[in-house]
């Protein structure tokens, strides 16, 4: 697999040169935090960041996406017939995605792409995307990727991986898509032995910097109904205000709603992110709500991530350990603590 080394200045130029081949999404500083944005003439990538406030899931799976269109004009031959909206799946690349967020797409994938049903929009955008990761030299204290099958330099779900060596980026292709990206990437040199060794040492030392150890080993063997009735849910849920922060910031939360919006005679069927924290999520037309109470919704979120997903896919937990919900929960509900409660 190809490896190249770039000075950081050269790398920025190289990225700019790739814009004709890819829509490139990069971390950009936006006030107090970073966020992934499409690289254009206005936006300068800033790779000096811990992680973005919002995960890059919206690059594959936008918060609001037009799925279908229709006309309500009775004079039109196709009045009231739902039709697929035109989509452009030009190749795109997420450059600087952290390994936890790349891993997250792998966790989400079986929901949208399974033997029975395939979600055409998620799959097409996923398949047109090249994931160029950036290893984490200095993980945060809230990171726990190593407990959930990832790591600060994990290659899971990545097509290429960047090593920040100070003044240079060493970039390593991991898949054919990554090879193609590096082939199209102008400039760069073959890394010498010193750089290769430095990258290996960096990766080796980074894992030790993650001090959190969250146990998930017993989750699989727990009885679902017993965990559901566990005594700790009221306490876990008390502080929750049922906002959507955790679910919207989470790279592995995928729930959505579908809504029709009409302007005059033209309409769209739109998919919007939804959240299990919202009472409306499960409200029946009859008024009955199987998750009417806060504690039921909080339980659903954690049971889904840490038990139902485990039981359904036998693919670990539905969490990549990015720590966003820990840092940003308005009331400090900490998934590490809940996971320990569930696993004990």
């Amino acid at each position, binding site marked *: 697999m190809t490896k190249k080394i770039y000075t950081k200045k050269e790398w920025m130029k190289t990225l700019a040169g790739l814009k004709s081949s890819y829509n490139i999404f990069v971390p950009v500083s*936006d*006030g*107090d*935090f970073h966020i992934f944005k499409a690289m254009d003439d206005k936006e300068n990538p800033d790779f000096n960041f*811990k992680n973005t*406030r*919002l995960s890059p899931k919206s690059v594959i799976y936008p*918060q*609001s996406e037009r799925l279908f269109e229709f006309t309500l004009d009775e004079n039109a031959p196709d009045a009231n017939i739902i039709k697929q909206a035109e989509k452009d799946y030009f190749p795109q690349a997420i450059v600087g995605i952290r390994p936890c967020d790349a891993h997250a797409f792998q966790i989400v994938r079986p929901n949208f792409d399974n033997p029975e049903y395939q979600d055409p929009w998620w799959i097409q955008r996923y398949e047109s995307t090249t994931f160029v990761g950036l290893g984490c030299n*200095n993980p*945060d*204290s*809230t990171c726990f990727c190593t407990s959930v099958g990832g790591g600060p330099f994990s290659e899971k779900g990545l097509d290429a991986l960047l090593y920040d060596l100070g003044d240079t980026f060493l970039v390593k292709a991991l898949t054919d898509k990554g090879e193609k990206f590096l082939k199209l990437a102008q400039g760069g040199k073959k890394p010498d032995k010193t750089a290769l060794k430095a990258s290996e040492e960096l990766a080796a030392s980074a894992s030790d910097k993650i001090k959190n150890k969250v146990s998930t080993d017993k989750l699989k063997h727990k009885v679902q109904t017993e965990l559901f009735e566990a005594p700790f849910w009221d306490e876990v849920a*008390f*502080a929750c*205000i*049922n*906002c*959507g*922060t955790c*679910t*919207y*910031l989470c790279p592995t939360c995928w729930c959505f*709603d579908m*809504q029709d*919006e009409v302007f005059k005679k033209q309409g769209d069927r*739109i998919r*919007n992110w939804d*959240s299990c924290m*919202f*009472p*409306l999520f499960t409200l029946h037309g009859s008024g009955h709500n199987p998750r009417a109470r806060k504690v039921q919704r909080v339980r659903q979120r954690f049971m889904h991530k840490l038990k139902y997903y485990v039981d359904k896919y036998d693919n670990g937990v539905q969490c990549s350990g990015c720590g966003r919900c*820990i*840092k*940003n929960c*308005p*009331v*400090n*509900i*900490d998934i*590490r*603590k809940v996971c320990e409660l569930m696993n004990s």
Partner: protein
Amino acid sequence: MLEYVEKIRETAIKLFKDGKVDVFIGYQKGSIPMMNQPVLINSADQAGLLYWDRNCGLNLCNYLTRRTDRIGIVANGCNSRNIVTHITENQIRRDQLYIVGIPCKGMIDHRAVQRAVKQQEILAVEEHSETFTVKGKDFEETFNIKDYLRSNCLVCTHRNPVIFDEIIAQPVEEQSGVDAYKDVRQIEGMDSENKWNFFTRIIDKCIRCYACRDACPLCYCPTCFVDESKPQWVGKSIDPVDTMTFHILRAYHCAGRCTDCGACERVCPMGIPVRQFTKKLNKDAQEFFSWEAGLSLDQRPLLDVFRPDDYNDFIR
């Protein structure tokens, strides 16, 4: 305000021992720095969980809505004003509450502190009486608390609780001569296009998570207007028109009721200064009606009072 911790714990223990409350609501120390968590304890032996420092950013009044038991609760100035509002709006009964008043000197703006250390990760914060020290992996810095107060605390004129059954310390001196509405006047001075642009810009990061609404003790409607589906008042996408509709309507629902506790702004994951919406309404309430929310149990809420001798023509 660390010295309050022991007092709060002792008070809670006493209340349980005397059988005066069924539960006690306060804060516990959070799992990350500058973040305390609302907590409910059921017995005296859990009192050790209770905590108080300059990071009690959530409004505990949120947790009172429609409870039926007897509740002990800690309340500083703004929280106590929301309790008053809750009582006058029939969300809780006064006789259910044992209010442990807390004279407050203001909460720390965790975002300003993050900015001051250039977004490096803060691993620990030590609070002293006038200063606090933040520590990270390769840094340690000490700041004056007064330079890092939350913007609503900076202009607060009700630091002491307005209603309580006991108070755990001598009242603190209220701030005087604060200019609470400097920012509002600036916006008022804009032409309508610039105003629109200003509000459009501040909400452009909104992800419609509704944390601002959910953190607000005034937002207790069983079904919020954004969640209504028959009829659906607001679209659910992140179309700027829908997002703006949400923010403006939310603010208007708080008119004459907002205590400027700042919880909405504290919780916003995207750092949107949502108080810019509510503050203008607070200013109008004060200037037009000499009204500040939640100061007395004997006053009906501003917008449910009718007086035949009202000096405004439109109401007659």
